């Protein structure tokens, strides 16, 4: 009798444990090395605290957008179910929709969709809908800004530059005055990576033109030469570093952090690192402003930011969507803004006092993000990007002239952007 009782208890205990086991879900989220996986980890831990049945593994991929996508292409082309949620660059939704890699979220959101989407910055609500389907939800927003050394501008009594010419003049004055051979004037992404596409597009947009017009290639304009001429002038005057063609995005932050860079055209995440990293030599010496423009032109900037897609091959789609809803909430936007200076995807969060305390420059940043422009939307975006960045890179390296770089760019883009 005693034995039977014991057995019954044991069976019951096992059944309970078993059902608890069955309810336990482990979600795997993929993020890039530059998108602050440490912050993602903290946010995921907070989610597990509130949802004890969901554990989250954070998988960290390559440092650049294209290295991440190369890995994701192999995983998803083989329909592997290992990833549940994937952080994708703002340029990817069209490609992901065409490939069928992302689980459309419309069905999961139902009536919520119409209420939810207008709460985001419009650009992100738009970027994540392809052909009427909701491909992903925004995680954080981004655009390029002019980072500058407040202390050096004050020392030489120069204003924050409004035009490129003013910036070059200031850079010359400061570099001549400082006599520090390590100090570079202005830096932007120049190596053959995704960021270099924006290096070309920003001055092109500033000149009032665009890569495409009504979806067709639009580089037969005088403005298409403008970016080459601008960086050519910067090179001649020694404002650009000599090795600009070897500079990837994060190198701008590293140079700035080491105190070796006066002006940098780079993204939101840099602020938090410059202000908080233990080895930063420029704490409290940095200002952030709108990018300069041509005389008589307008300031332009590239839209960036990262989106949360649910893998079409995930085995935990419903749980994954719930997690994505949490990650794409004002609450998490605020956490990211404070912990990583990731720009919020909700306009309201920019005015949050705690957010502003961590990032005073967010006060003026909202209109910049709202005015930021998109790189061309195409399912074949990787080829578009390759054509632009490799020719911009060759020009910056000095191996192609403006004419050659522009002609090669056009001949590669023509078959894609017809």
């Amino acid at each position, binding site marked *: 009798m005693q034995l039977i009782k014991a057995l019954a208890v044991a069976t019951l205990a096992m059944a309970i444990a078993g059902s608890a086991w069955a309810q336990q879900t482990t979600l795997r989220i993929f993020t890039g090395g530059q998108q602050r996986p440490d912050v993602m980890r903290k946010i995921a831990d907070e989610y597990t605290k509130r949802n004890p049945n969901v554990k989250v593994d954070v998988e960290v991929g390559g440092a650049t957008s294209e290295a991440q996508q190369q890995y994701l292409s192999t995983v998803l082309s083989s329909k592997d179910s290992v990833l549940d949620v994937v952080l994708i660059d703002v340029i990817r939704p069209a490609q992901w929709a065409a490939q069928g890699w992302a689980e459309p979220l419309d069905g999961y959101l139902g009536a919520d969709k119409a209420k939810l989407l207008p709460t985001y910055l419009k650009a992100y609500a738009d970027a994540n809908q392809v052909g009427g389907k909701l491909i992903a939800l925004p995680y954080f927003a981004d655009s390029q800004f002019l980072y500058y050394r407040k202390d050096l501008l004050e020392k030489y009594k120069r204003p924050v530059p409004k035009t490129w010419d003013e910036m070059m003049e200031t850079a010359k004055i400061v570099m001549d005055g400082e006599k520090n051979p390590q100090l570079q004037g202005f830096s932007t992404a120049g190596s*053959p990576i995704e960021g270099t596409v924006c290096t070309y597009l920003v001055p092109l947009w500033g000149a009032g033109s665009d890569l495409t017009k009504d979806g067709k290639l639009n580089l037969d304009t005088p403005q298409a030469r403008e970016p080459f001429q601008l960086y050519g002038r910067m090179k001649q005057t020694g404002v650009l570093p000599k090795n600009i*063609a070897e500079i990837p995005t994060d190198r701008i932050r590293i140079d700035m952090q080491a105190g070796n860079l006066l002006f940098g055209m780079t993204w939101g995440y840099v602020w938090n690192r410059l202000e908080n990293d233990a080895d930063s030599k420029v704490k409290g010496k940095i200002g952030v402003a709108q990018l300069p423009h041509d005389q008589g032109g307008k300031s332009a900037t590239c839209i960036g930011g990262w989106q949360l897609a649910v893998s079409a091959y995930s085995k935990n789609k419903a749980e994954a969507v719930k997690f994505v809803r949490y990650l794409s909430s004002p609450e998490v936007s605020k956490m990211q803004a404070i912990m990583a200076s990731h720009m919020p995807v909700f306009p309201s969060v920019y005015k949050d006092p705690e957010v502003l305390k961590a990032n005073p420059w967010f006060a003026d940043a909202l209109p910049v993000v709202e005015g930021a422009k998109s790189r061309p939307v195409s399912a*074949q975006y990787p080829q578009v990007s*390759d054509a632009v960045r490799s020719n911009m890179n*060759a020009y910056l390296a000095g191996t192609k002239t403006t004419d050659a770089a522009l002609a090669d760019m056009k001949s590669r883009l023509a078959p894609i952007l017809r």
Partner: protein
Amino acid sequence: MRRKDLSEPALGALLLLPAALLLLAIVVYPIATLFWTSLHAVDNANPAAGEHWAGVENYTRAFDDGRFWHSTLQTAIYIAVTVPGALVVGLGLALLANRPFRVKWPVRLSLLLPWALPLVFAGLIFRWFFEYNTGVVNDVLGRLGAEPLQWLSSPTLATAAVCIAIVWKASSFMALMLLAGLQTIPKSLYEAAEVDGASKWQQFREITLPMLRPAIFVALIFRTITAIQTFDIPYAMTGGGPGDATETLAMYIHKTTLDFLDFGYGSALAALMFVFSMVATSGYLRYTRRSVGRGADA
């Protein structure tokens, strides 16, 4: 009643079967799939176009593609420089390691280390060496009073830098194979030559080199095939830049398939690379067979 024994050929076939099946599954099947895909239009970046038979279209497209020719030429340069380069450096290292050191393992270990290092690490290490501001190469140039060079922004210098990295990485494997060859040469030959009054140089030319020939050929075949597939080191050092100047065929294939998702065209490019490898290897094999035959006649 005694069970009938298998005949010898049947038993042989049976024993070979598992290995043959394994090879079919992991070598023949993927290669056949590659060729099959290369004859189809499979552009995953444009799924609307669908997959269909394309005949030799992908191949004619390759022949008209300047980027294919450029990356093939760039690969040929890496082969032409790094195969002899790694042979010379590797032979030197092997001869050095073959000296009668009292403690052998540190020598062997230092020979093994570059070989054991993943290729992409080697590429990153050398990228830092050749970095413009902080690299050790420009630092040394500066100390010698020379101007720093933009190693990775000039097609010529970048190619040179990549070649140096590849030779460093490949020499150790070369040296290991040659060292194995050196150890099979009987000491008595050198003793006899010594008695006949041959100089060290004569001993090297008349004994070491001829006796080492089989090892050299094997090493050359391995190096040439890996040189045809050069990918990791330039990928990590230059990413193909400036522009596409240092892009190899393997990098272009990688970009076409994994970035552009154009599997049909990528497969055709890979098939062409496979053909190049086969031609190079069969050239070597024919030459070795002939020279071995000549050796037997003599």
